[in-house]
């Protein structure tokens, strides 16, 4: 077994374990912390695929920024009562389960359809993960989608500020 396979197995098991722990934990803060560990495991997986930039961004954006906000809100709400989190069966659960089954089926087809599960990366692919190559592709080939997404995010930011302002006026 090569180092990459060993690393992949460790990280994959860690990712699955922390992912399960996100769902089964009763304590919302513990769930959030498991999710952060999950992001770290994912970042490690990106590293084994030579996607260093993606790994760093994963930690910087998801673990470092978005989850800080999630933890912030969870702590502010202080969901101490575990009973508040127990859910009865509803149609959404059924849909979620069927979607999950579909996803697993799809993954299984993709995985067993290929002759090998794990392919060695070519030298060209190994260079694709650096900041330089991602930047080059982003600002040439995918310039229009990039700008469109920026605009979408800008609209969302303006919208959220507008909503926050409105509430403030009503409360006065």
């Amino acid at each position, binding site marked *: 077994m090569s180092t990459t396979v060993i690393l992949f197995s460790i990280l994959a098991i860690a990712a699955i374990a922390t992912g399960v722990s996100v769902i089964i934990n009763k*304590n919302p803060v513990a769930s959030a912390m498991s999710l952060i560990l999950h992001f770290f495991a994912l970042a490690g997986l990106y590293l084994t695929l030579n996607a260093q930039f993606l790994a760093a961004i994963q*930690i910087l954006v998801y673990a470092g*920024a978005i989850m800080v906000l999630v933890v912030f809100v969870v*702590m502010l709400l202080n969901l101490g009562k575990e009973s508040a989190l127990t859910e009865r069966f509803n149609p959404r659960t059924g849909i979620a389960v069927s979607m999950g089954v579909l996803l697993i089926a799809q993954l299984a087809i993709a995985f067993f359809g290929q002759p090998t599960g794990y392919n060695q990366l070519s030298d060209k692919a190994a260079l694709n993960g650096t*900041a330089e190559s991602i930047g080059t592709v982003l600002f040439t080939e995918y310039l229009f989608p990039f700008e469109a997404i920026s605009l979408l995010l800008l609209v969302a930011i303006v919208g959220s500020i507008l909503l926050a302002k409105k509430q403030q006026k009503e409360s006065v």
Partner: protein
Amino acid sequence: MEQWLVQSLVLGLKMFLIVNGLLIAAAYLVYFERKISAWIQNRIGPNRVGPLGLFQSFADVFKLYLKEDIIPTLANKGFHAIAPVISIGIAIAVYAVIPFGEYFYLGGEKVYLSIAPHINVGLLFILGMSSVGVYGLTLAGWSSNNKYSLLGGLRSSAQMISYELSMGLSLIGVLMISGSLDLMQIVQSQTGGQWNIFFQPLGFIIFLVSAFAETNRTPFDLPEAEPELVGGYHTEYSGMKFGLFFLAEYVNMVTACAMMVLLFFGGWDVPFLYETLGLEQGSVLRALVQFGVVVGKMIPFLFLFIQTRWSLPRFRYDQLMSLGWKVMLPLALANIAVTGIIMMIFQ
């Protein structure tokens, strides 16, 4: 096989040196903090333990070890125990990519003065790690089950989110000039006195202010704010667990200073120094001088950190937020735009 063994030995030695060097640096920073505060407040400061009180910090650590470790009954014990570990662990992890010099040859082996040299996302790693470090404080505040602690923890996360943005954006200008995320290359691009501080003065000021906020130092020490919040996030900590938070704060300070030196003040570059001394590339002496130069350049910034704490009052919370979002962020964005335009014109 032999090569492999030598390399791991060198790596282990480097890690040992960095961790212990940081601990000793933190111990003496605490000593100097107390001495400088004493000078500023017209006192004498620690002078009993050892000559000039130089062993005061070791006595302090000894005291912390002997102190009873109190865990509140209603605290979440697991998180309460792990929070200081997260704080100090992440603070030290950053040093995996920080270079203190170039390299030297030891018996034909190229030894770099950093644990992981030439990581092409080194700078992003530092930013990511320092943003993750906030969980130590947040968890400490939450798990203590004390409202003052919780307020401290919440403040630290809100503050971190607000200033992380301007910190990251203030570095974009440096990246545009250097064209790399690798710290060694950023330093090499400043060789010969072309330090980034001359091209990015605004970027440096924004970085400096954000660094004060990220390390929770006065005037941004709202997460602990002792007059309002008892001790903030570490109210319910005692003994060495408190000591670890304290240590993490000083290690973060050293990190911030190291980043200022490497990104804005040319790292180990001093014009004509190496040529005058006749030190050739790859010699042990040159590496030592480089290390000395980096540490020497860090000292004024460390002094600035300490001096600011004892001369400025703390910000009010709304002032902190409006400074972060309404002043620092637009300035950082303007800095990027201006840098881009100037680079376009002169290219």
